[in-house]
């Protein structure tokens, strides 16, 4: 039977039923985590250095600010994934030569960048009601084998909650 042929009362009842059905799922909408993630600064630079005197080049501190709400029972995770190796034209520096330390621990942890598998930077459970910050220091293993150039890549930070 075409909808337009229904009596007005029946159509109204159907509309209300549909709305009620939607409201049945409303609690799930309220439970959907609300996440906020900010990375400052947006760019870091590893300065040129003598590998003998500076075997590990530290970049300026990166501040990670995050907030997790409506996540009463679930876990949350901040992960890092490089878009690729450090490249300068045809020259490359494997991204695995970049490691990081982070604080506070927990929830933050140290790790090694990867371009294939997201690496855990921080994790926890439940809510983080107030915006909270962590500090990440990236370090590049220096080497005489790196060819001259200006290399670059990008790293994506992802905050996830179920």
């Amino acid at each position: 039977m075409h909808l337009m042929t229904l009596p007005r009362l029946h159509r109204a009842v159907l509309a209300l039923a549909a709305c009620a059905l939607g409201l049945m799922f409303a609690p799930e909408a309220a439970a959907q985590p609300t996440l906020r993630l900010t990375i400052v600064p947006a760019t870091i630079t590893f300065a040129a250095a003598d590998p003998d005197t500076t075997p590990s080049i530290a970049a300026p501190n990166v501040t990670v600010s995050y907030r997790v709400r409506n996540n009463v029972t679930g876990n949350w995770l901040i992960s890092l994934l490089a878009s690729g190796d450090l490249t300068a034209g045809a020259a490359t520096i494997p991204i695995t030569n970049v490691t990081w330390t982070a604080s506070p621990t927990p929830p933050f942890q140290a790790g090694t960048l990867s371009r294939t598998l997201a690496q855990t930077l921080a994790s926890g459970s439940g809510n983080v009601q107030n915006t909270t910050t962590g500090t990440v220091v990236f370090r590049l293993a220096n080497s005489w084998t790196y060819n001259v150039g200006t290399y670059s890549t990008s790293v994506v930070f992802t905050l996830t909650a179920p």
Partner: protein
Amino acid sequence: MTDIRRLTLGFAAFALVATQGLGAATATGSLSATVTVSAMAKLTLSSATVTFPNADPDSSPSIAAAEGPVTITAKGKTSTGATISLTLVAADDLLSGSDRIPISNITWTASGAGFAAGTMSRAVAQTVASWTNSGNRTGTQSFALANSWSYAAGNYTTTAQYTLTAP
């Protein structure tokens, strides 16, 4: 038409809620990383002096340096595809007052990847080692003087300079 809109809104609300109930919530941020690698060269010699002791030319036609092989560590950063080179040139012949032993009477053998044997010159820098792209090399250079009855008695000296170039 009014009722149809209500019904449509009801289904739309349901669809929206159902979609939010599936999958995880995510928030992302991005960081750009830059590395500057500059040209650089570093050279280390195990000895700053080599000495050739007095010897009978018949029994010792070639006199090895008393210090033994000179160990050379050369490190350089250069552009992709460029050649790093280590050269050696003498300031002059071996001199003792007005007496002279041609510097070309000193030769060397070498060991280590990228290192090569050669003969000293005071006119043209001679290649001791070379390689392509950035990297470090370690090798040895063993000097020897061709002995001769024609050399006048005396203490002969000269200097030589190594140059490591990473273009």
